[in-house]
Structure formats: C-alpha cells, structure tokens
C-alpha cells in the first residue's frame, strides 16, 4: 500500500507509563509497532512528544525516551503540544488517562484527570486557532457534566474526538456482527470487574452491538442498578431474561467450575450465589423501548459475553468479545491493537471511525449506574442521555 503523503505528528498525554498500564499498551504500539493483518505494522505517523503525569518507581518513561530519542518527553501538556514553538505543533493527540494514583469520589469513582488534560489540550487549540483530532482512552470523564462539555467542545471547535473501550473493537468469538437494521428486543452482557471500571467496558460491549438496530441509537430513558441481595432477587424474578443470561454464559471461556474435580460445568443459581460475592447489574431502557442489562459477575466469569434477542429469530444471538488478557493468559494485551488501529485512521483521515456519541452515551450510562448504586438501587430517569446517532455502516471490530 502506498504511504499516505501526510505523516501526522502525535503528542501523547498520559497519566502513568508502567508495565501493563493503558499508556504502555497504547503508546508502545505507536513506538514499537504491533501485529496487524499478519505483519508487524508500524503506524504511518510519529509520536513526537509525551507528557506523563506521574512517575512511580516502575516508570517506563526513561526507558522509552532513551530507546526512542525522536520522542520528546515534556513537563507540561502545553509543551507536548507546542514543542517549544508557542503554538500547536502536532497533528493529533493521544490522551490516555487510565491508571495512576488519583483520589476517589465518595461514590468510588477514580478521578482520572481526563477532563483537565482535555481542557489544557483545548487551550492550546484555542490559542493556536487550530484544532486536531483527539483520542481519549476509555470513558470521557467520571463526571457526566465534564464529559458532555468535552463532547460539546469537540463539536463546537469541529475536531474529531474518539473515545472508547477495546471491547467494541476486539476479536469476537464467534466472529459475528449484529446485522444492521434489525429489531432488537432485549440485549444483555455478562462480564466481570468493578464499578466505574469494567462496568463501562460491559456497557461498550452492549452499545457497539445495539446501536446497529432499526432506527439507530436514540438514547436512554432510565437506568436502575442492582447489587447483592437485590441482584439475586431480581435474577430470580426474571427482571432480566434468563435465556439471554444463559446464552451469554455459554459464550464464556472462563466459567469458574462450580464443583471441585470438574473443569467446565454450567452453574446453578446456588453455585452462582456461592461464587459471586458482589454481583452488580445495570438495567436500562432506551428511548425507543429496547431494554439492556449489563451484569458484573466477578467470581463466575472473567470475560465479556453478549447475547440479544432479535425479532424473527428463535435463538438468542450471542458472542464473546475476546480479550487476550495478560499476565494470566497472554503476555500482550492485543485487544489494544484494534483500538489503536481505529484511532490511528482518524489521525490520517480526520474522520472518526465510529461516532463520538457512543462514548458519550456509555460515559453517561457508567455515571448513571454509579449514581443508582449510590442511591441504593433507585431507578433514575436519564433525560440527559437522549443521545441519538447512527452506527457506522462498516464494522470496526477485529476480524482480519
């Protein structure tokens, strides 16, 4: 393939650069390249500067700076973006505000400074009279109002903004896509991890599939969270569909064996109650009526499994969004490869490969889930999440 004439210069703006931090997974792929389409792919762009907010003893910044001298390590975000010229001197920004030592809110959200980093980036854009594409790793912010402001700013200043989780773009096992324009009656994800962390990934798992339904995305009306005994009660009462729950579990490769001596068996409700100490569910209704449920079952599974009921099909549609997760299963977190590849394209073309609104909606859903849990599982109306958009025509998940 011919090299594009335009070779973008990128600035990295990150919280912490240590082994297996998101910064390491993402920035390393620009510096070292990564396996893609059967070759070791080197992005056709240069990461010319890097700002890292925290430097713990295991900091890899010095090692990477020494091995990649063309990358300038800067003491401020402004420096990273201007490279000493006084104005914006890069063609794209990679914002990775995940991991690092930051305080938590009373609701348990880690206050990663994505919004603050974004504001400083935008300040440079404003003073330079020029904006460039920004990728923001994971959800836009722990705080909805800030996330909305980030999104609104990008639209007002007309720069591409991608955010998101690897779950939306990684391998699927089986490798299936939600057919475009179908009527989805219910959708559900069974995954694992904590609140204000992997719940977001579960929501992205759901959203990247359901956004393809007939009429496109219309936003979310309300959300209700369940935890502990409320969760089990709701599960027993069939608040979320059991057939979809079971279909999702049958896509898992990491079902904790319910009995010693057995390596792979379907758990009973009693087994699940014994294995899962703190189950969490976010159940929510989209504006067009679609019901979705995101379920965290740490102790039972360690993967992300999706199931949906589609009108006209007798069997649930299901798949696993597969994360080759180090250090237990692999050495590389290769699910970052399709994520990087997606926003890499944005820096060249100036076009988001999937809509910024997906990330805005999942950010809002994550915050709503945290709020509902904090309110003891109260059903919360979410008029602010009336976010409409159309899914991209082309699939963007990893399949080549």
């Amino acid at each position, binding site marked *: 393939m011919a090299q594009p004439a335009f070779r973008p210069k990128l600035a990295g703006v990150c919280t912490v650069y240590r*082994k*297996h931090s998101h910064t*390491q*997974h993402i920035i*390393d*792929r620009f510096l*070292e*390249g*990564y*396996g*893609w*389409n*059967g*070759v*070791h*792919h080197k992005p056709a762009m240069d990461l010319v500067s890097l700002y890292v907010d925290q430097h713990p003893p295991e900091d*890899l910044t010095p*090692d990477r700076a020494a091995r990649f001298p063309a990358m300038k390590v800067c003491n401020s975000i402004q420096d990273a973006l201007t490279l000493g010229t006084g104005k914006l001197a890069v063609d794209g920004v990679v914002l990775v505000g995940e991991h690092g030592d930051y305080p938590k809110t009373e609701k348990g959200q880690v206050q990663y400074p994505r919004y603050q980093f974004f504001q400083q980036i935008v300040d440079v854009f404003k003073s330079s009279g020029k904006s460039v594409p920004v990728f923001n790793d994971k959800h836009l912010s722990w705080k909805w109002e800030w996330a909305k402001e980030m999104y609104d700013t990008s639209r007002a200043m007309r720069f591409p903004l991608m955010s998101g989780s690897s779950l939306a773009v990684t*391998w699927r*096992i*089986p*490798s299936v896509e939600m057919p475009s324009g179908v009527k989805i009656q219910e959708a559900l994800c069974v995954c694992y991890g904590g609140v204000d962390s992997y719940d977001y990934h579960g929501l992205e798992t759901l959203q990247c599939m359901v956004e393809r339904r007939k009429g496109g995305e219309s936003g979310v009306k309300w959300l209700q969270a369940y935890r502990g005994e409320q969760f089990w009660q709701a599960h027993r009462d069939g608040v979320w569909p059991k057939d979809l729950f*079971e*279909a999702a*579990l*049958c*896509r*898992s*490769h*990491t*079902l904790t*064996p319910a009995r*010693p*001596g*057995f*390596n*792979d*068996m*379907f758990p009973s409700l009693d087994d699940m109650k014994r294995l899962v100490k703190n189950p969490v569910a976010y159940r929510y209704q989209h504006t067009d009526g679609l019901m979705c449920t995101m379920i965290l079952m740490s102790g039972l599974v360690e993967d992300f499994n999706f*199931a949906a009921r589609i009108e006209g099909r007798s*069997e*649930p*549609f*299901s*798949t696993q969004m*597969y994360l*080759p997760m*180090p250090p*237990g*299963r*692999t*050495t*590389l*977190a*290769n699910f970052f490869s399709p994520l990087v590849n997606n926003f890499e394209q944005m820096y060249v073309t100036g076009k988001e490969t999937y809509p910024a609104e997906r990330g805005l909606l999942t950010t809002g859903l994550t915050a709503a889930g945290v709020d509902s849990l904090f309110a003891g599982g109260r059903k919360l109306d979410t008029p602010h999440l009336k976010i409409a958009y159309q899914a991209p025509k082309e699939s963007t998940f*990893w*399949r*080549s």
Partner: protein
Amino acid sequence: MLTRRTFIETTAIAGTAGDLLAQAGAPKRVAIICTIYKYLSHAQHMGDRFLVGYPFNGKWHKPNIKVVSLYVDQKPEGDLSAERAKEFGFQVFPTIAEALRVGGSKLAVDAVIVIGEHGDYPRNAKGQILYPRYEFFEQCAKVFEADGRSVPLYNDKHLSWSFEKAKKMVDTGHAMKFPMLAGSSLPVTWRLPDLELPMNCEIADALMVGCGGSDPMDYHAIEAMQCMLERRKGGETGVKSVQLIEGEDVWKAGDDGRWSKELLGAALSRSDSPMGNTVKDGRTQEMVLSGEARKITPHPAAYFIEYRDGLKATLLMLDGAVKDYMFAAKLRGAKGPVSTQFFLSPVPNVTYSACLVNKIEEMITTGIAPYPVERTLITCGILESCLTSKVEGHKRLETPHLDVRYHAPRTSQYCRT
C-alpha cells in the same frame, strides 16, 4: 475414506432399519476407554462433557449420549473414575472387553471413545511417550470381531507413537467398516482470525509455529498445519521426506532461505504471547528482523516436511519465544501471506475441547466421521519420522511409507458459530 455407502454398511451391521427407527431418539450408549481419569486429564475434560454437557453454539449442549461404561488403565492419586461412575450411573470395568460389553457377553455400546493421553508411561529413545492407544484399539477391534458388530470409534490425539501401528489401526477400521475419528483439538478450535484456506488453493510455502515439548506439543502443531495444507489442489498425496534440525542450524536454515522469514514474521504477528522483552516490560515487538526470536529461543527445532506433490512446509518449535500456535502460508496468486492463530482457550475450561467433543458426538450420532482419520495417520507418520531424523544425526529421511492419500472435507470443520 468413509463414504455414504460405508456408512450404510456400518449401520446395517448394527441392526435392521426397524431397529434403527425404534432407537431414534434413544441416547447412544458409549464406552470410554482411557489411561487415567483425573482432573484436567484429557479423559476428564473430554469425558465429562458427555456427562454434564458443554458450551456449544451459544447454548449449554447436552449430548443425547449415555456413558454406560468406563475402563481406566491407571488410577493415580486424584482418580475420579469411581466418583463419576457412582454419580452418573455407570460401571468401571477391569478390562476393555468388559467395558465394551458392559458386563454382558456381547458388544453393548453404540460407540467407543479411546482417550490414551496422560498417565505414567515410559518414553522411547526418540522421546515419544508410549501411550497404549494401539493396544487399547486392538482390544476394541477384537471385541468387534468376536461379536460380529463394529461401532464408531474415536481415538484421542495421534493414533500411536508408531506409524506402523497407526496404519494397522486405520486399515482395521476400514476393513471392518467402522467410522473412525482421531486427532487434536487444534484443527477444530476457533481461529484468530477466522481463516480457512480456499479449497483447491495452490500453496507456495507454509510455516507453522509451535511451542512446548516433544512429543506431545509438536504433534498438535503438525496436525494443525496438516488441516490447513490438506485443502490444497490435488488433496493430500503423502510425504516424500522429512528432516528435523535443532539449535543454531535452525536460524542458519532461515538465513539460507530454507524456511521463510516473511512467513515467520506473519505467524509471530498473530501471537498473543511473545516472551522476552514483552514479559519484561509489556512492549509489543517485532521478533524476526530484530533477531529477538533467535536470541530468546534456547532450543529451537525445525521440522521440514517435503510432500510428494512438491509442497514444502516447515514447523518451527520455538519454545521460549512464544506460547501459542500460529500458521502462515503463501498462496500462489495472492499478494501477501495469510496467517492465523489456533486459539487455545484458557485453563481450566479449555473450551477448545468442546469443539472436538462436538465432532466426536457428530460421528456417534450420524455414523459418519466429519473428517478423515488419514489426517491423523499422516500426522503420526510425519512426527515419528521427524523424531527419527532427530536421533539419527538430523539427517534427511525419505519416507516412501507415508503414501497417505485423502481429500479434505469440503465443509470447514472448525468452530466458527
């Protein structure tokens, strides 16, 4: 090869059409003949799927199969055979013949599953573990012969450490007209990406990367490669020669162009577990041109396979460099190489064995082996001859005995739904 005609002949031995109709819907009765039955042995993780079901196609699938008897050759600490027999209502028999006759005087099962993997068995000078699969098979065939009836038989992994024995097994299966299936999970597990070689493609060059010890893991790698190569134009026509080299010679052979560095690069680009610097600090890495793979593989081995139709293929066992199994090939007329990873899902679920169990179940319920046992036969022969080359000064060996011909099934057989 099993055809529709041999299927009819096989089932005709089993009974009249009326008998078959009467049995429709009744579970198939199965005997499991294994070396050991303890946690995470092949017998346990495959055998249990017939007892408790397994995930398949988005459902917890319960096979319409009843395990009615079990033979276990060794009962080490952790043996689960008695426990399973009690819980699931079958008997553990002291001999294979009794297990097949379920304590009676005639063959009383509809299929036999032989799992001769794991357990304490000696190794030969080539490093092959002498699992008694041939001996187990012989005892099954003896019962079939004595009782005048044969049933489908699955043999886990390679048929035998010896090609001669393996050949006898396959010949017996054909002579007695019972369906036989054998082999590894790798050919039927998920592929990342979902790559199947086009039927009747022309393959210019092929390379497989594997890891782990010999002879268990090189076997899996050879069979994984074989399930791809057998789809080439003209089908499988056998192997002309093999050679196994080790150590620095492996890299020198690469420098000399005896195996393709481009294909190794393609294969390694599919790995999720490069070692070395990735373990150290998490980084992604290009391992071929940088020389890193060479640096961090303490005992590399190259298995060169020259097929009778001229195709040359190489297995590189790179223990220390990676921890997964990848395939790459150059097809004539295609731009770049094609490549994929054979996905070995995590322990303890090892769901890849569910993909294999589903194929065994298919044979048991339909009486037709979904893919030819000759694939495993040729794999046995390639492996044995490579290991002979290894102990005979790494010399090239002509393999006229590997005149194994077969055609790949038209329909893809790996997990993709």
